[in-house]
């Protein structure tokens, strides 16, 4: 645990626009040097083309209370490392416009064995949805919009 405690400054998690497949692939590749890892768990949130009252969601525009997000995410990170035996964990969330079919959330946990990686990944995703002050504005194909409600 101690080795993570010296992470004094909350890590930035924001990416402007969509999270690309290349970014995700490179992120996986970087872990090949950490040979004590035996399992990765990855969650990717993709913008869905919901059909609402005759209109289709074309994109979501994300805004956030950025400073609060980083503080809360730092707390989540510490709690997760306390609870699960993880080697590392990475979280990225989009800001700005992400089109339907593109990735807006990337959660990546790694461990020696699969169970902690999978369980930690799931818990982080749930906590992100519930606790981080981020808002999505659904933009429809006719350019109208509505504020998204998480299910």
């Amino acid at each position, binding site marked *: 645990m101690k080795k993570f405690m010296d992470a004094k400054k909350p890590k930035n998690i924001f990416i402007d626009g969509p999270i690309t497949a290349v970014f995700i692939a490179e992120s996986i590749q970087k872990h090949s040097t950490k040979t004590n890892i035996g399992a990765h768990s990855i969650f990717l*949130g993709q913008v869905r083309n919901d059909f609402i009252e005759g209109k289709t969601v074309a994109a979501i525009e994300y805004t956030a*209370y950025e400073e609060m997000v980083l503080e809360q995410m730092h707390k989540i990170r510490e709690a997760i490392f306390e609870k699960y035996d993880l080697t590392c964990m990475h979280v990225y*969330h989009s800001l700005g416009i992400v089109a339907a079919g593109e990735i807006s959330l990337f959660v990546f946990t790694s461990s020696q064995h699969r169970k902690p990686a999978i369980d930690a990944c799931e818990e982080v*995703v749930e906590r992100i949805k519930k606790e*981080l002050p981020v808002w999505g504005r659904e933009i429809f194909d006719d350019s109208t919009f509505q504020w998204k409600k998480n299910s």
Partner: protein
Amino acid sequence: MMKQINVLTFGAIREITGNKNLVIEAVDTTETLVKILEEKYPMLKTVQYAIAVNKEVIQHPVVLNDHADVALLPPFSGG
């Protein structure tokens, strides 16, 4: 010197306040602040939001210090 409270608005709430943050003077608690804001923007009474003081969500009214950041947070929809 009067206390100055910074009110930060987000999401649907930000549209109610005309796309801006606010500075409210001479308020001592979140309770009074909400009253003032609801008088100024009656639409606030019709929407759901949580309140964060200096980036921590509060469950009960609290006393505000000078230059406190009070954020009005509509339901989160990230991810």
